[in-house]
Every structure is written in C-alpha cells, then in structure tokens.
C-alpha cells in the first residue's frame, strides 16, 4: 500500500455509515424483529449449583392458554453440548443452567408457564476440581533465579468479570420448510451457522444466520449458545417464529464471564534491571464447562512481553459450579497483565528505576515463544515514547502509573473473503462477516473506496448475512479488519481490472511474528480517608498498524479503557458461597463505570503501517486498549498512597487506612 500521506479515503475520520440508523432507531437488532404470529420464549433455570433432575412435569405449563411449545429433557432431542453435557441435561452444574423452555404469545405468559413447571432436584456435592498444569517454559528457571540479584515474589488475583453487553444474547428463529433462518446477535455468523447446523443435524446450506447490527459481544458471542438451538426447536415444535432474548440475569449467569485468576509470580533481575527469570503459576476458574471459542491464555504474555532467557509459566484450569467462562476482550492477557505489570512496577521501585527504563532494558525484539523476529520491531518503543511526554512527576496525593502490554492476536489471518460488484457508477461490497460494533462496515468501505478511487458514498456495504456472502471470519482476536481489508483490496483490484471481484486473504508471513502492543499511563487521585479513587486521566498509545479511520480507533480506545476501568475499580461478580447464587447478576450491584467515572482519555496512537504483516499494513485494536489499564491504575494508586493492591478490583476497603 502507498504511504499514508498519499491515501485518499483511508486514514480519514469518516463517521460510521450506520450511525444515522442507530441514532434514529432504524437499525434493527435481533430482538427488534416482529414477525407475523411470532412467539416469545423464556428459559427455566436451575436453582442449585449442582443437582440431578429427578423429575420434571411440564403438563400444567403445556395446558396454559397461549403456550405453544415446551421443551425439557423429557422431550428435547439429545443434542450434545459443552465438553460432556447436553442441551437439557439431567445433571445440572451451576445456578442458572437451562432446565426447560417455553414459547408463548407473550414474554409474560411464557414466564407464567415456567412457574407451572414442577421439578424435583436431588442436590449433589459442590466441589472444585483442578486440572493438570499446562506448563510452557524455556531456558533454566533455577539458573535464572541463581543469577538474580533482586527477586519479586507476590500473589495477584483478578476477579470474575461479567461482559454485560448492552444487547443481551438472543435470536429470532424462523423455519421455512426444512430451512432455518436465525436472526442472531453474534460475533460470528458463519461460526454460528456451522455449529447450529451440526447440533440440529442440518446441512449448512439449510441454515442462514443474520446479524445486521449488534449491541456488544466482547467475546461472549463468538460461539453458538443454547438459546439459539432452543429457539430453533421451539419454532419447529410450534410452527411459528420464536424469539428468545435473555433477561439481564440470565445474561450474567449462563453465557460467559471473564475467568477469575490467582497468579503466583516470581521475577528475578540483576541490579541493572535485566530480567533473569520469570516464573508464574496461574489458577484459572473456568466455571462448570468449557464453553469453547477463544481460550483464556493467561501464560502467553509472560513468554513474550519481556526479553528473558528463563521462563516457566504454568496454567491450571479449575472447574467450579459456576457459569462457564468465555472469551472476554483480550482473554487471559488482561488478567495476566495486571499481575505482570504490577510486579514490574514493584521491581522498578525496588531497583529505584524509572518504570519505562526498566521496560526498555528488557525490550523484546523477537517473539521468544515462536522464535521469530517481529514485523514491527520498534512499535512498542514508539508507544513508550508517545506516553512519556504526557506526564511529569505528579503532585502529592496524586499518583502516576504506567503499564505496557502485548497481545497474541490482532494480526488477522485467512480464511477471509470479499466480493466487489461494480454497478451504476458505484460498487457493492459483500462481506460475510458482521459488525460487532467496531465500525467494520465503514472501515471496509474506506478500503474499497481507496482501491476503486470512488467516493465513499458510492460504496454500498452488505454485511452480516451468511446467505450469498463469501466466507467471513468471526469478529474475535481483534482480527476482523486485519483479516478482511487485504481481501477487500484484492477483490476491488480484480473488479477494477474487469475480472470477477473476488478477493481472498493471503497468509501471514512465515518467518516473522506479527504482534500488537501498547502502553498506557494513568493519573489518579486517592482520598486516603474514604478510600475513594478518582482516575483523572489515561493516556493510551497502541500499535494497530495503519490507522484506517482515526474516529473508529478512538472509539475502541475509549471503550476498552472504560471497560478496563470497571475491571480495575468496581466490577466483580459476587457469588453467595452457601447457595452458589450470583448476587449481582444485574446492572444495579454489578457496577459498570458511569459517564461520571470515565476520565479524560487521551489517544496517543500513531499510524504505524506494518507492511510486512499484510497487504493493507493493518492490525487490530479491539482488545488491546483494555489490557494494560488495570495495572496502570494499580501502579498509580501505589504511587499516590504507598498501598500495593494485588487483588482486583481496587475497592475502597483496600485503601482505607
């Protein structure tokens, strides 16, 4: 691709194409659909953390007027689910697990029907089970610690966080003959098509998945969940369209969370700051089932963020009787970053070193895990540089904290395809991906406009429908744009040359490693009498390759930092130990940041085209802004108070002295 300065549509802050539809209410989400004779479904959920269903009687629910279908283990097909379970299993492993479902003419009638279902549960013991450690290592860890002149050894914990997508999980299922259409809120229309077809024993061509718009996914919507199959089965049973949208508490019980971790960490370094050994043992609470999708890789960053010859990182999955964990915006890395970057701050203070100097001393120029050089060797240095200018030493009672990060994803990859059709002096761009909310439509239209030398308004983007679209990837791993932009370029080039406008994503470079990375600095004020933390400012610099649309990158940074602010300060799923019931599966006591909590966020990223990475020089920025914020805030809180909080969230009681 040309240099940024020579580009037309790419690099411009174009407002989102779908913006007017969203603010005017014209944009249709999965739960907005109203089809003729449509029914509404509700799900009965298990009240116990571990139980065997010994009897279920749905006859009274079936007899209720305006109830058209009831499903439970008594009549549902044996659809395998999770690693070892079924759609409606008789062994239930967490409070909130699906027991039965009803489709009725209104949500209220469906709820009435649920109350008429009689279930006997036989309680089973509640216990945690730790799996075998998964160990990744290099060098000689014992020798590394013998060489060390300074050692930091601490335990850090991160809490279970809830995605709380503004739009909950949900879908509307409609059959036409033996073909199923699912209007779904998903990050992966093709992934859902594949999974649902397999679960229902249909060929993939018989399943169409549509996601026109979505109100958040954050990783929790990258797989097919039970509600989609339940809606499809209820629709088949009733012969009518069925809409199943999860209530807020179901959303927070049964369709994913960020796994809690306990990380015991040892860092060894020489007096000049050179790291000689990194050792971590991470216990990861995965919940009752392995949900699938992107894995939570807690050990990954320990192997790559800093140059260190001796590393031992082990991850132990612990199964519990809680709702299953699922990918949550930078799964594993956000949790690990809090521990590693807090420990690096502790090390810097012990050594009396500037925190950025310490990081530069241990700068990694090669991917030590994959043993390949990075495509953009200097980009993290540039991020440090961008941050450094923004902060001077702060006044007393204010604190400044710094954290760096890397992220395993963001490079994009094949398969990803695009189709461009020229017509009426403009072009139609057909993409089989979906806009998770990042502005995929707009960014891809800019790529096509650039290549076709057309004004943006001459590009019509069709996105979010598996019917007739070429394959599009799941919006996960900050990869959508980096995967699709090269395919769109190729398709546009073909169309411009008069050929069929099809483009495919080429593979990533074989001998180099593509990473995303960045750094953030936080300024906080702490009231030591009341424990109140006020985050005053966050400066964020992230390497996302070429910036296609600075407005969209700003949105990702604001959103990621805001979500991380909750992770750092206020968000935590609270479970009553005695009953296994989640006490704050709602937006009242699960405290997301409000507008009043969000500080000034300065976006200091540079466009750093990574032309070795792919044909568009683009990398992702969906997840990175969330990764270093919690550590930066914790480090700033220490700077302000001298109190090192090693357990997230940093709530008042940890700071009142």
């Amino acid at each position, binding site marked *: 691709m040309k240099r940024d300065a020579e580009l037309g549509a790419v690099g411009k802050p174009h407002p989102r194409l779908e913006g007017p539809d969203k603010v005017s209410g014209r944009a249709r989400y999965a739960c907005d659909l109203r089809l003729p004779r449509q029914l509404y479904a509700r799900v009965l959920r298990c*009240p116990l953390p571990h139980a065997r269903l010994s009897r279920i009687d749905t006859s009274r629910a079936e007899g209720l007027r305006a109830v058209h279908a009831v499903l439970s283990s008594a009549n549902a097909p044996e659809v395998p689910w999770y690693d070892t379970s079924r759609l409606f299993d008789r062994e239930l492993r967490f*409070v909130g697990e699906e027991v039965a479902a009803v489709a009725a003419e209104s949500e*209220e009638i469906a*709820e*009435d029907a649920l109350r008429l279902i009689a279930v006997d549960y036989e309680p089973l013991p509640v216990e945690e089970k730790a799996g075998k450690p998964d160990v990744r290592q290099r060098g000689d860890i014992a020798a590394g610690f013998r060489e060390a002149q300074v050692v930091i050894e601490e335990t850090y914990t991160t809490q279970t966080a809830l995605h709380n997508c503004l739009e909950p999980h949900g879908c509307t299922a409609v059959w036409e003959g033996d073909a199923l259409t699912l209007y779904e809120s998903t990050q992966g229309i093709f992934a859902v098509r594949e999974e649902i077809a397999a679960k229902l024993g249909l060929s993939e061509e018989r399943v169409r998945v549509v996601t026109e718009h979505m109100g958040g996914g954050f990783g929790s919507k990258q797989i097919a969940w039970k509600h989609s199959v339940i809606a499809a089965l209820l629709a088949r049973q009733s012969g009518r369209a069925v809409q199943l949208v999860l209530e807020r508490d179901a959303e927070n019980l049964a369709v994913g969370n960020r796994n809690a971790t306990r990380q015991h960490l040892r860092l060894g370094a020489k007096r000049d700051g050179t790291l000689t050994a990194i050792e971590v043992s991470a216990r990861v609470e995965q919940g009752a089932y392995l949900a699938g999708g992107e894995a939570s890789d807690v050990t990954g960053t320990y192997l790559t963020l800093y140059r260190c010859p001796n590393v031992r990182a082990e991850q132990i999955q612990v199964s519990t009787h809680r709702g299953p964990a699922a990918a949550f915006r930078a799964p594993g890395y956000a949790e690990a970053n809090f521990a590693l970057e807090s420990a690096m701050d502790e090390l810097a203070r012990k050594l009396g070193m500037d925190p950025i100097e310490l990081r530069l001393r241990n700068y990694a120029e090669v991917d030590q895990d994959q043993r390949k050089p990075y495509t953009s060797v200097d980009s993290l240095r540039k991020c440090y540089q961008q941050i450094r200018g923004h902060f001077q030493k702060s006044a007393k009672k204010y604190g400044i904290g710094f954290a760096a990060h890397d992220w395993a994803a963001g490079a994009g990859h094949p398969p990803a395809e695009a189709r461009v059709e020229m017509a009426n002096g403009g072009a139609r761009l057909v993409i089989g991906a979906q806009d998770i909310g990042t502005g995929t439509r707009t960014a891809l239209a800019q790529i096509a406009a650039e290549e076709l030398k057309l004004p943006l308004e001459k590009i019509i983007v069709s996105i979010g429908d598996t019917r007739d679209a070429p394959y599009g990837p799941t919006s996960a791993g900050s990869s959508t744009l980096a995967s699709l932009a090269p395919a769109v370029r190729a398709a546009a080039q073909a169309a411009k040359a008069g050929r069929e406008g099809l483009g495919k994503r080429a593979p990533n470079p074989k001998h180099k490693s593509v990473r995303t990375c960045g750094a953030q600095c936080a300024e906080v004020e702490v009231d030591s*009498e*009341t*424990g*109140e933390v*006020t985050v005053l400012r966050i400066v964020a610099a992230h390497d996302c390759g070429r910036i296609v649309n600075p407005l969209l990158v700003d949105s990702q940074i604001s959103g990621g930092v805001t979500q991380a602010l909750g992770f750092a*300060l*206020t968000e935590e799923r*609270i*479970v*009553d*130990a*005695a*009953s296994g*019931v989640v*006490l*704050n599966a709602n937006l*009242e*006591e699960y*405290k997301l*940041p*409000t507008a*009043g*909590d969000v500080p000034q966020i300065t976006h200091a990223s540079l466009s750093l085209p990574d032309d070795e990475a792919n044909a568009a020089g683009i990398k992702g920025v969906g997840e990175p802004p969330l990764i270093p914020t919690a550590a930066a805030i914790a480090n700033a809180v220490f700077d302000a108070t001298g109190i090192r909080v090693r357990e997230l969230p940093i*709530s*008042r*009681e940890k700071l*009142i002295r």
Partner: protein
Amino acid sequence: MRAFSYHAPSTLSDAFAFLDARTRPLAGGTDLLTLMKADLVAPERLVNVKALLPRGIAAGTDGLTIGALTTLEEIEKDAAVAKRYAALAKAAAVAASPQLRNMATIGGNLLQRPRCWYFRNPRLDCWLKGGEHCPARDGENRLHAVFGPGPCHAVHPSDLAPALAAFDAQVLLRSPRGERALPLEIFFTLPSAGRRTENVLAPDELIVSLRLPPTPEGTKSVYLKAMDRKQWAFALVAVAAVLQLEGRRVVHAHIVLGGVATIPWRAASAERALVGGDLSAATLERAAAAALEEALPLAHNAYKLPLARALVRRALESLAP
C-alpha cells in the same frame, strides 16, 4: 411480571376502596415495578394514585410542606429547599439517576424496599421475605448494616430519608380510618417478627405529605454520600447533618446516617458531643467517633466505620463558619 388489573379511580376515597393486601398503589413506580419484575410482590391490582395525592412544595413561615407525589427532581431544583434545607436538596441531587429522579416520588422514596441482594434475589429466601434467617449475616455483607441487632441486616436505601429525619420531618398518613402524623423517627422502625417492613405504614394507608418545621436563624445543613462509583449507586455510607449555630457555638445538632442500618440511623451520641460546644477540630473528631461507637460490623463491612467517621467529620467541618 405476573398479570394484574389496573385501576385509575377519580377520587381518593374510591382509591381507598381498592386498597387491601392484594393491591398496591402506583405512583412513580420506580421501586414497585422492580419488585414485581423480580416476583417479590405480585399484586392482583394496581391503583393509580398519581392524580389523587398532593404534588409540589409549599414554603411558609411555619416550615415546608412537600406533597407525596413531588418528584425527587422537583425537590432537587426547588429554591426554598436549596436555601433553607440544603441537605435535602443535596440528598435528592445525588440519589439514583436523572431519569429515576424525574419519575420517583418522595412518598415512594420513603417506602422503597431495601436493595439487599439477598432480599432482592428471587432465588433466595431471607428473613425479611418471611424466611427463617438472614443469609447476609454470615454471607456477602459488604453492603450491609453496621448498626442494629438484626434479625435483618439490610440497609435502608433512601438518600432523602436521613436528610428529612435530620430536619425533624413528620409524615402525614391517611387511611379510611382518618389521618395521622408521625415523626420520621417513629415512622421508620426496625422490622420485627410481626411486621417485616422498615416502617409502620398500614396496607390501606397512603403517605399524603411531609411537613418540615421551619429552620431557625443560623441553621446550616449538608448531605454527604459515599458510593462505589461516582454516581447512580446506593450509599455505602451517607450522612445528613443539620446544625444550628450561634457564632461557633452549636445550639442544636441533628446527625442521621444512611447506609448503615435497616432504617435511617440517628447518631444521638454524636449530637450530644456537639451541642453546647464549639466546632473545634477536637470536638468534631470526638463527635465523629461517637457516631460510630455502638457499631457492630459484620465480616465484610468494617470499612464502613472509618468511612462513616470521615464523612461525619467532613460534614461538620463543612458547616463550621
């Protein structure tokens, strides 16, 4: 939510004809609807009283009258309240969110049920809902009471109630049997086995209005609230302080804490530590400590003691001339 019938009678006496144990009056609905959605209450009938009770604020030489249907937003914005009852205006301003303050009425605000996450969770039983014991006592009680003997350990959620109590407000109640006026300190009474609610309102009784006595010359007041985030959260701890000063000498002091007990909690020993004295740093410190001296924290809420001490001291500091 379960089905219910909706009634909008045109007179208050018609409304009273509906009121019984199976019926709920509907005003702002901001608490009632959340209780119904969680199936904690399931009234067969709702009676709209929005057109039947007084709304608005009347200020006179004899004090202030606030109609039961007055919204929190109207209290927050009222000039007389802001001038003479500053703590009340501030309490209204930091309650809930603008959307809720536009809907919520002062009558409903006083009657709202606790936000205790055991009480509110339909999957769990608790003493206040008629169960055997309080699961918060040995459970997740970070948000719970540090005063009061139990058996319920929920805290009262209202921001306005402590401020109103600190101004010696009276609540005017009406039922088919007639009217009665109760000081808030009597209206709010700890629940007991025979009455598992936080107040003495009868099922067929409505709050009509609130009356606040006039504030003598030299009266100053403030409301401070600590939350888990900057806005839109119930109080971890709140303090309403009303002082009448002659110079630096305290003639009269009322201090009522929120977020620490199942009802608004009068800090009588703090008041005693202040009256007759000056507002020296040592006095304020002594009063703040006295406010908490009978607290009995649970396993996860001991932080409320230093937090409340700090808020009481700061509230008093802010009132010192």
